[in-house]
Every structure is written in C-alpha cells, then in structure tokens.
C-alpha cells in the first residue's frame, strides 16, 4: 500500500500538496487501490511519518516538499527495501526517486503570455512566503516577460515571511490592487490560498490573472489568462503506478516531459490568441530542446530579470 505525506501546508493548500492528493486519488480511482496519507503538524513529524509508514510496510512512500530532503536523507538508508519518492528536492540514495520540476520553465511561458496579453506593459507577480522556491517562479516569469517585451515592468511582491502568508487572501487582494494601481494588467499568483484572493480581485477589477500548480482557469472563466501547470499529480500518479521496485534516481519534470506547462481549455480559449500560443509553443519546444536556457534562481540565488 503506498503512502503519501503532505507538507505542513496540508492536503488542501490550493498548491502542490493538493495536486499531489489529486494524483493519488486518481491512482486510487483508476486502480481501485488504497493509500495512506498524513498531513503533518510539526517539523518533528517528518521523520516520524517516514519511519512509521516504512515500518508498517507502506511502499512506495511519496512526500511533497523540499523540506523533507533532510529527514529523508537520514531515514532512507534505514529502510533499503522501501522505495521513497520525494517531490521538489533531490536526495541521493539508492532507494529514492527524486522528482524536481522546472517551475522556471513553466513560469517563463506564462510570463511570455502575460507580456503579450498586457496592454500596459506592466505585469505583476505575487508570491506567498518569501522562500527560494517562490523566487524561482518569479524569476522564470520575469524572464518570460522580458523575452517578449524587454521594456516591460515586472512588479513582484511576496505576501509575508510567516506560514500565514500562504493563507491570507485578503492580503493577496490588496497586493493585487496595489499592483493594478501601479499599472499591472496581468498578475501571476504563486501563493497557495493567498492566490484565491489574487485571482478573485483580478477578476473583480477586470484584469487578467495567471493561476499556478493546477489548472485554475475555471475559477473565473474568461478572466484567468492561463495557469502554470506543475504536474505534481502526474508525478504522484506515476510513482504510485510504478509501485515498489520502481526506477529510482533523479527525475526532472520539465517542459520536455510535460512536467510543467501552461493550461489551455475552454475557459481561456478566447483570451489566448493563436499568435500568442504559437510564440509560446515555439519557446516551449526551444526550451525542451535545450536551445533556450531559462535561468533557475536557485542555481545561484540570483535572477537576471528581477531583483528581490
């Protein structure tokens, strides 16, 4: 029986934990299998949950979030017969599959779309907590924007410095309004529950927004330009389907293998012109082919297109 461990944000964080949960559910639905899961409440429970599941025979054990890296590094070697899958982090152990996403690539694409959709030449980014991962999103986005319009302005705000920053839609709204008053007409939210407020306010104020992680286009039809898809659900689904004895190692989920991308559906069909889509698709295949390099903030803690 596989197990899934969510990071502190919880199963329903409107972000990657939730995506992971959907992936596991899809697996359960399609295979009729069952899985265990746990929402952590404290840092100390990371190692605890790993060990408890491993000892009780769960296999594979999937966990979401870079914060597990340290704990898994400690635990993995104690349970050589258990397969672990960690998302968003690399842990070098023979029984671990590490899945990382090139969020900067996906963000680059939606950045391009934002720049193309923007009338004002100013676009916004609203992050949740100020951590490197979110800067990676912001940095990729800004590069995409600049690629289309080098003169464009990218306004970037983080919601806060405590975990409350992931669940403060009111502040998300206010940040959106502040960005609008500075001229932004497209905003990209990578802020968990806070993003709910961003998308809502963008819709209310009649500007475009960009969702994150899963396809959020349907939340405000005709108002959400697109969503930067980070297919954590696929990664989890894949891991559970592969089951024990899966292939281990380092899994990069990028544009090339559909790990990240942008969402197109009936809700945003009218917003995305053929020309826009063509340009973005071209960039996507360039990136996939390795002809276009998008800088990853976390590789050297710097961003060519944006300062924090």
């Amino acid at each position, binding site marked *: 029986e596989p197990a899934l461990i969510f990071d502190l944000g919880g199963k329903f964080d409107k972000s990657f934990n939730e995506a992971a949960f959907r992936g596991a559910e899809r697996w359960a639905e399609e295979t009729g299998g069952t899985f265990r899961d746990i929402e952590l409440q404290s840092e100390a429970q990371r190692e605890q949950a790993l*060990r408890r599941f491993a000892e009780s025979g769960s296999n594979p054990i999937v966990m979401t979030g870079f914060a597990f890296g340290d704990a898994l590094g400690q635990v993995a070697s104690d349970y050589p017969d258990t397969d672990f899958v960690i998302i968003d982090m690399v842990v070098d152990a023979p029984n671990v599959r590490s899945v990382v996403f090139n969020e900067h690539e996906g963000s680059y694409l939606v950045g391009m779309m934002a720049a193309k959709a923007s009338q004002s030449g100013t676009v916004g980014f609203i992050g949740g907590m100020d951590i490197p991962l979110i800067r990676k999103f912001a940095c990729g986005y800004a590069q995409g924007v600049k690629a289309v319009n080098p003169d464009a302005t990218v306004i970037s705000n983080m919601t806060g410095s405590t975990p409350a920053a992931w669940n403060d839609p009111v502040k998300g709204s206010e940040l959106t309004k502040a960005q609008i008053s500075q001229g932004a007409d497209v905003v990209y939210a990578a802020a968990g529950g806070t993003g709910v407020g961003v998308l809502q306010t963008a819709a209310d104020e009649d500007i475009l927004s960009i969702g994150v992680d899963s396809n959020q286009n349907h939340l405000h039809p005709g108002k959400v330009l697109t969503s930067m898809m980070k297919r954590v659900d696929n990664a989890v689904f894949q891991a559970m389907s592969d089951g024990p004895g899966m292939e281990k190692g380092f899994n990069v989920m990028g544009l090339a293998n559909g790990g990240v991308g942008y969402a197109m559906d009936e809700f945003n069909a009218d917003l995305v012109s053929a020309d826009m889509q063509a340009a973005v698709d071209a960039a996507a295949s360039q990136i996939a082919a390795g002809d276009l390099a998008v800088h990853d903030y976390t590789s050297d803690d710097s961003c060519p297109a944006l300062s924090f």
Partner: protein
Amino acid sequence: MEVMPKWAEVTLVPLISLLLAAILSALVILAIGEDPVAAVKLMVTGALGSTYGWGYTLYYATNFLFTGLAVSVAFHAGLFNIGGEGQAMLGGLGVALACLLIPWPHWTLALLGATLAAALFGAAWAAIPAFLQAKRGSHIVITTIMFNFIGAAVLNYVLVNLMRPAGSMDPATARFPEAVHLPTLHDILAPLGISFSKAAPANVTFLIALIACVLVWFLLWRTWLGYEIRSYGKSEPAAKYGGISPTAITMIAMLISGALAGMMAINNVMGEAERLVLNAVEGAGFIGIAVALMGRSHPFGVFLAAILFGFLYQGGAELALWTNIPRELIVVIQALVILFTGALDNMVRMPLERLFLMMRRGNS
C-alpha cells in the same frame, strides 16, 4: 481554610475536566463518522504505549516546558509575555550560530555553548519589550506580539539571504556538524540497561528542561530574587514600599523569561532537526501560554501540562497516521482540553466543593 482537600483540588478537578473534554471530543469524532473509542486507544497507545511514543511525547513536552516556564516566570512578575514564539525563534538563531561557527570538540561543550547562546538570544529578544514596558510604559502584550512578527521576519531574512547554503532550496541552515549532535534518550538510557526507542527525538534536553523546572521553582520560592519577582507581580504599590525596583524586576523577569523561551531551541533545533529551519518553533510559544495558565504558573503544574500537551501532539500524530481523521480535529481536541481544564474548571470545581462541604458538615 480551603473547602476542598488539596488532593481533590489537584487530582479530581483536572481529571474530571479532562474527562469532559474527552467526552466532547468523542462526540465530535462521532459526528465526522469515526470511531471515538478506537481513536482514544490509538492516541493513548501511540503516545504512551511504547518508548517510541514516549520519545515523541517527551520531545514535544520539552518544548512546551521551556515556553511554559518562560510564560510562568513573567507571569509571576505580573507580565504577560506573549513573545515566547519570537524569543524561541531567536534562540534558534543563537543555537545555529553557536553550532555552526564554533568547532566544538564534544557535544557536552557544544550543549553548554548552545544553551548559553539560546538563552542570550532569547533574552535579547525579550529585552526591548521589557525595557519599553519598564521605562516607557509601552504595554508588553502589544510589544511582544509585535516582536513575534518582527522575529519571524528577521529569521526569514537571515535564513533566505544569509545562512542558507548556496543553491539550497530549503530556507534552512546547513546541518550542524556531527560533533554537536545531542544524545537522545536512547543513547542516554542504553548504558543503564534501559532500551529506549532509537527513532524518537527526545534527547538530553528533556533533562535540561527538568533542571530548568527545578531551578525556576527554586528561583521563585527559595531566593530573594524570586520573592521580589512574586511580590512585584502581586502588588506594585507594595513592592515600591518594600524597596523593590519595578524597573529592575521587570527587566530581570523578562530576561529570564526570554532566556527560557530561547532555550527551547536546544531541543528542537540542536536536538531534533540539527539545523535551523524557518518553521522551527511552530506555535510552541503560544502553546506555552496555555501550558503556563493550565499549570497555574507553578513549575510542577507546567510540567504536567506540558506532558499533557506532548501527549496530545504525539497522540494526534498517531491519529493522523492511522486514520482518516483530519488534523483539524486534533486542533479541536486540543481546544477542548484547554477549554475544560483551563477555563471551565470551575464548572467542575463548584459542584465538587459543594459536595465536600456537605460531607464535612455531615461529619462534624
């Protein structure tokens, strides 16, 4: 001239209150379609049924002991220190700096150094609110709340920009060197022939917390400084009459309080995570308030309350592991325990007192 014998006050009242909280919790569990009996069993065996469970229970309890003692000491001086959260965060920074910057030859020395650093940083974070209270009359409740937020921002800044190993995604410091790893209860008890779970994070800090308990008790009830702290807390006019300096006591009590809160970091940062992460304190500062209030600000009461909350945390984790009970339910259970044992205790005490009075009258 108490109505109830002391044993009844300290055992019957909390036990019946706990029972009420348990019954209500059971109803909530029932309401969301789970089996309350199984849940309670799971919690008890999970938290207290093995050395593994105890190892986690005691680990959490250690955190709460420090923050609970911190709140208690300030409380005895009539000061409501809500800043345990921020002080513990900064204490973590102190521990991290001590462990990473100084090449300690042995964990014992590292523990000493880290404890000192944690206490110093925690005390420093309490010093400004204390000073503003003493000299400017700025309400300590607001300033300590503000310093919690400021502390979170500082820690975030330091971890994201200064102390994070280059290229790491995780806003956390590097792991501490092997030499400063603290022995767990497993390591400590093994030479005594007691086998204690290896996996559990409870470590030598628990003993330090116990020592802190005793020291706080000793400070408050055996030294003139503690006597002055308690006097000032009970009556400021009397303290002035008695030649006790309000400024000095406010500062001293808050510094001790901050130091205790900061010292929590040797448990969670040095003992468990062995590195400093952003979210290291995770609310223990606030639980400390409940622990101190429930423990009536007495170190022994704080000890019991801390164990109770350790039990709730670990029992809750077990529930989360083996059932589909969402973690919010555990929060609800904690709330009910706090409510019944801490705020609605008179609901139990009043009828009990009447009962004892009747019995006494009947006897005489």
